């Protein structure tokens, strides 16, 4: 379907008018400009991460002296590896737990009919209108009572990310909604219990949305700042990469740690970008599907 929409009109337009050619040329120029604007900060950050002559901000981009100094410093003299490990651990555990929770929630709300289903959905809609950060004030006190804040922020953060993740069921419910109801019914006529319908019929069909959920759950902890900073609360051992690198850009430290921030940014962005590129198809499907279904 999508292929047709793209390729067919192209063929039809083999013999293009001059007017069309001019407008297409303009569009190409515009697109090149757009791509440059979007890519350039990332190119800059990469270049600056190799700068050796100064460690603060500089008014130019191309290093005068190239080298891996910043990376070496980053990995040997700072807590960066610790932060990286923290974030990776959080991301992996969150990806697993959150996927399970979101799938349970969205599957149930989409394909099972039970008393209170509508109420539940409305309730969560209303609940979602409170800023998520609000709950953190209480949770921080409770978690710190359990010793899960500061240097031990990792399990605390995992708990915070996963516990309420059921509220983010919308995208995957939208996906489940598109699977015809009659499949469930046919399976139930064939003698399947509802659990068997879930396991043997719908789950095998839900691969794209499972991958989307895993991917987005995995990516979120890398960028979370607000929760991570609050729970870690000034204790470097509990930072994730976002809070850690942010601490190098504050007024007091930016003069000496700016290039290290760039190097750290590259090391964070690289694996995620590669992972994303591999699984891009699923992500795109999820995003476009989710927006249409609300």
């Amino acid at each position: 379907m999508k292929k047709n929409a793209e390729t067919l009109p192209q063929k039809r337009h083999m013999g293009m008018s001059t007017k069309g050619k001019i407008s297409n040329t303009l569009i190409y120029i515009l697109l090149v400009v757009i791509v440059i604007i979007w890519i350039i900060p990332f190119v800059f950050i990469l270049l600056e991460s190799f700068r050796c002559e100064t460690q603060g901000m500089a008014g130019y981009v191309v290093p005068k002296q190239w080298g891996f100094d910043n990376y070496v410093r980053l990995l040997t003299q700072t807590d960066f590896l610790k932060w990286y490990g923290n974030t990776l651990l959080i991301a992996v555990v969150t990806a697993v737990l959150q996927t399970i929770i979101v799938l349970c929630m969205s599957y149930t709300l989409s394909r099972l009919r039970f008393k209170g289903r509508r109420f539940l959905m409305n309730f969560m809609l209303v609940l979602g209108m409170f800023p998520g950060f609000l709950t953190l004030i209480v949770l921080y006190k409770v978690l710190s009572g359990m010793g899960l804040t500061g240097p031990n922020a990792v399990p605390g953060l995992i708990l915070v990310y996963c516990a309420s993740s059921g509220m983010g069921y919308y995208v995957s419910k939208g996906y489940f909604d598109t699977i015809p109801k009659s499949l469930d019914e046919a399976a139930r006529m064939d003698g399947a219990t509802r659990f068997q319908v879930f396991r043997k019929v719908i789950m095998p069909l839900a691969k794209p949305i499972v991958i989307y959920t895993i991917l987005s759950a995995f990516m979120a902890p890398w960028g979370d700042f607000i929760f991570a900073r609050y729970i870690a609360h000034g204790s470097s051992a509990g930072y994730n990469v976002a809070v850690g690198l942010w601490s190098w850009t504050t007024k007091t430290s930016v003069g000496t740690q700016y290039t290290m921030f760039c190097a750290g940014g590259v090391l964070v962005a690289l694996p995620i970008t590669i992972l994303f590129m591999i699984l891009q198809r699923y992500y795109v499907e999820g995003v476009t599907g989710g927006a249409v279904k609300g």
Partner: protein
Amino acid sequence: MKQLTDLEYLRLSRFGKFLYKLKRFFLHSVPQAVINFFKRLWNVIKKFGLAIKNEAVDIWTTFRDGTWQTKVSYLIMGFGSIARGQILRGILFFLFEVVFIVYMIVAGGHWLSKFGTLGSEGMHMEYDEAKDVFVQVSGDDSFKLLLYGLLTILFIIAFIYTWRLNVKQNKLLDQITRSGKKVKSGKDDLKSLLDDQFHKTMLALPLTGIIVFTVIPIIFMVLVSFTNYDAAHDGYSNLFTWVGLDNFNELLSWNSGSSNLSAAFGEILAWTLMWAFFATFTNYFLGMLVAILINKKGIKLKKIWRGFLVLTIAIPQFVSLLYVSKMFSDNGLVNGFLMDMGWITQPIPFWTDPILARFTVIIVNIWIGIPYLMLIATGILMNIPQDLYESSRIDGANVWQQYTRITLPYMLFVTGPYLLTSFIGNINNFNVIYLLTGGGPNNPKLLTSGGSAGSTDLLITWLFNITTGAESNYKLAAVIGIMIFIVIAVLSVIVYNVMPSTRNEEDFQ
């Protein structure tokens, strides 16, 4: 306002139609939506009252008509179930009752009794006779009293609910034995958890998480908004207590002489809404534009263009935001470049001029948001039936007309709900503001006693600042949180009542 018939409406001029629709919207749809909302609210209240009454009647009739096992179950939960073979259920009911009673005697009563005052004496000095010195003793902890008091109340509610389930179960058992059918065994009960009660199995984990980590904290914070919990009343050295609606009064009283908190709130709210509006719609239209450009017939390498933009989604936002923030700072790349070129002599105050800072965050947000919107718009654009464009070409439409008459209406219809969620998301868009400007530059108008804020601070970053800052102004944070909720709720109610594509969930199935 009078509604025109279809034929009358068709006779209006284009401008007349627009005026009519506008008038209809404000004089009819919006009031109607408000009226409907209250009607529904009233209905819900009425239904709730009726339900309570029905419950009471049912509890009474179950008792009156019940067997002796049922009657005993009113006191000893689970007795009826055990007596009639549902051992597992019965034991669970009974255990719950035992735990509840023990808890209430051991701890619950204590928490409840102090819930009304949140404690009488905090940390204080006490005379130790043995050592003949004054020692510091920890007294009540208001935070704990509030939290455990709340939990105890919720436990009581849970107990009442369980007791009611126990009564219902007995009624069912009465009915089954009366009709001479077989009672379901515990094994059947467990089996049904994988079949007709499967939703309970599936929802157990997610809902527990939501209740413990969202519902209870929110109720708690709502309660905090009625107390004076802040740095000066931290709960253990200085107890906090109930203050009624004082916090709301302080934030909302416009004649504030002593504190300019309400003015600050008004200012920040206005900017938050302005920001959400611009952030949402600039992204929306520009993202759509980029998608259309790439999608245009005859443009080659579509995948490559899209790929470049989509790639930027993968890079964690904090990296790009922090970097861009530094790029535009006074001694950053942009100013450095411009000064090297000799185009400016003074750095442009991207982040330090209040107006310019607001402008810059919106521009940078476009940079952040467009790839995402481009993705969404591309998906939808490809779904627009091609024959619509073909037939409009035959009807003589040019490119602009095709856009305004086909593409835009289609997009708006399909993405209506998305626009709302993205608007709400932008109201709470912490990352962009905090990582770009940290809320700054400082705004003298917003320096309040309760917690100061900068020109680009949104409600949510303000909330963050006043809870993490020296003030630790939790009571204000709670009130602001509730205000954000109210703003979003009002917006949603209006939009949901006006928008066509949000009405029916099943339409999409």
